[in-house]
């Protein structure tokens, strides 16, 4: 907050001697705007910054007081993390489940997105709404019946079972993202390909696919991140094959501080990088024009 007021109170290079009331109101509005932006950025960045400092410091520094403000680039905490029993296999499970979620949500979501953008059918609007409504059911509500069903079918405590649940969570997004991607490709391009000797399938391969591949990749990465970050279903549906989130949650009260920091950091970083890489397509999904 002090940063904010400092930033905004820096005088203009050429202060206007007879500032009118209008410019005063404008600069007041500007002050509010800038402090709002700074506050929101700080809200997100400060915790991540502390996470980073503590991950890149030795276990002793992390557990001592006062806390450091700059990382000392000591890999002690990370080494400890890697050596902690079960941690690496949890990490492997996370990657496995997220990978399966990624593939399944694209294989199922992209055709649905294509159909929504290219075909007229009854109940299309309702269908789009329903896709979003799948997110309206809180996962805890579904978790118990799911767990029972998974135990009956033998899917409990498997990567595939968890990936199925994560795919359900990711599909609304993959459908909506691919829907907007396909809608961005004029149907005339496909029609031109048909008249030039393509079938529906070859036109899709040769024209549509190359054009949407970057967007599909983005949508896949987003599905990966959703699964990577998910903790509730992971904690309820796995016991032996815990994913990283579930594993960290399980050991929350018993593990030392530097392990929590390192684990948190390992969780946050891929998500952050991926989301940053695909931000353009997330904007597209919400219909926000991207610069």
């Amino acid at each position, binding site marked *: 907050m002090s940063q904010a007021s400092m930033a905004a109170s820096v005088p203009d290079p050429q202060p206007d001697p007879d500032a009118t009331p209008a410019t005063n109101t404008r600069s007041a509005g500007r002050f509010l705007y800038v402090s709002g932006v700074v506050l929101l950025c700080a809200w997100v960045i400060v915790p991540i910054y502390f996470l980073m400092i503590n991950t890149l410091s030795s276990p002793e520094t992390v557990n001592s007081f006062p806390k450091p403000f700059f990382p000392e680039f000591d890999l002690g905490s990370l080494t400890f993390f890697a050596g902690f029993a079960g941690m690496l296999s949890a990490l492997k499970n996370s990657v496995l489940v997220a990978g399966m979620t990624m593939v399944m949500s694209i294989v199922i979501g992209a055709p649905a997105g294509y159909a929504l953008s290219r075909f007229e059918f009854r109940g299309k609007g309702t269908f789009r709404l329903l896709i979003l409504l799948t997110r309206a059911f809180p996962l805890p509500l579904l978790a118990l019946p799911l767990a029972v069903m998974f135990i009956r079918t033998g899917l409990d405590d498997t990567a595939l079972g968890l990936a199925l649940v994560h795919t359900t969570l990711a599909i609304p997004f993959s459908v909506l993202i691919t829907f907007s991607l396909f809608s961005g490709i004029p149907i005339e391009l496909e029609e031109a*390909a*048909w*008249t*030039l000797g*393509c079938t529906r399938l070859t036109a899709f391969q*040769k*024209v549509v696919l190359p*054009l949407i591949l970057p967007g599909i990749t983005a949508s896949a990465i987003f599905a990966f991140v959703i699964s990577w970050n998910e903790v509730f279903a992971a904690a309820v549906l796995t016991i032996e094959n815990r994913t990283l989130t579930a594993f960290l949650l399980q050991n929350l009260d018993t593990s030392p501080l530097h392990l929590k920091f390192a684990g948190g950091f390992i969780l946050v970083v891929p998500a952050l990088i991926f989301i940053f890489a695909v931000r353009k397509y997330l904007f597209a999904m919400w219909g926000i024009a991207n610069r």
Partner: protein
Amino acid sequence: MAEIQIKNVAKTFGAYQALHDINLTIADQEFMVLLGASGCGKSTLLRIIAGLETATSGEVWIGGRRIDHLSPKDRGIAMVFQNYAVFPHLTVFENIGFGLRMQKLPNDEVTRRVERTASLMHIDQLLKRYSGELSGGQRQRVAVARALAMEPDVILMDEPLSNLDALLRMEMRAELKGVLAESKTTAIYVTHDQVEAMSMADRISVMHQGRIVQAASPIEVYRNPSAEFVASFIGNPPMNFLRAKPAGAGKWTVAGQLFDGPTADKPELQFAIRPEDMQPAAEGLKATAKVVEPLGAHLLVTCEIDGSLFRAVLDSDMTVRPGEVLTLAPQSNRVRWFDPETTLAVA
């Protein structure tokens, strides 16, 4: 040989009937223009021929082969779209060669045909570019070259010039006509621009509300419109209409003047004449000038005859003042008659 026959084609979208019982035969190598106002069904008809839309009923034949059940790629057609539809991820070369590659032609044959059509369309300098690096006119050329490279039996064009600016449109009009005549393909060209239609077509099919009203040569459509709609749609300014009452066998009264006309037994007819077919004369229709527009080449006078609006295109040496009463005589061999009940021409 690629004669196109359209037999009893109709199309409905839900409850809306976009095409009513269309029958049309287009001769081999003919340049046929489908002309009509926006929404009259031109694109729908073209897309049915292309196979991008399915007719609700009727048949389409090309070169003696029924093709309406075939997919677009098997119909021997190529199409040029209004918004060009140049593939953005391919170079101009690969765009033009796209259809040839789909036919699995050998590389040197693809190169030969791409280079030939590219030079025909004057885009041989652009072969390495992507569509994002081209102007609208250049993209249009790529789209036409891509269609021509297929050496199709039939080339279909849906308002291919309507996104270009006026000057470029005029230039491309002449060029397209030349290239298509050279290529000896049968062409169907959709437009809402009557000048384009008149200047390019061997034959024009005038469409209105999902029907073909008249299919004839440009001069025939202009001189002998088969219905009031054609008369008022073609020509700028359009044809004038005045009410005519019977006055004995083959005689009709128009605004107090007696004219020779058809011997039809009707209580009323429409007397029709083009604005440029009116001359000042000692005897004729009394017209009160309302608006006078000197257009350089000629003088456009909007006047009133017998309570209805009437336009005359006169020599630009004349001076006419608003309010002045002119006496205008129609050139008698250019007068046409329409039945107001059926709106059709009466001989």
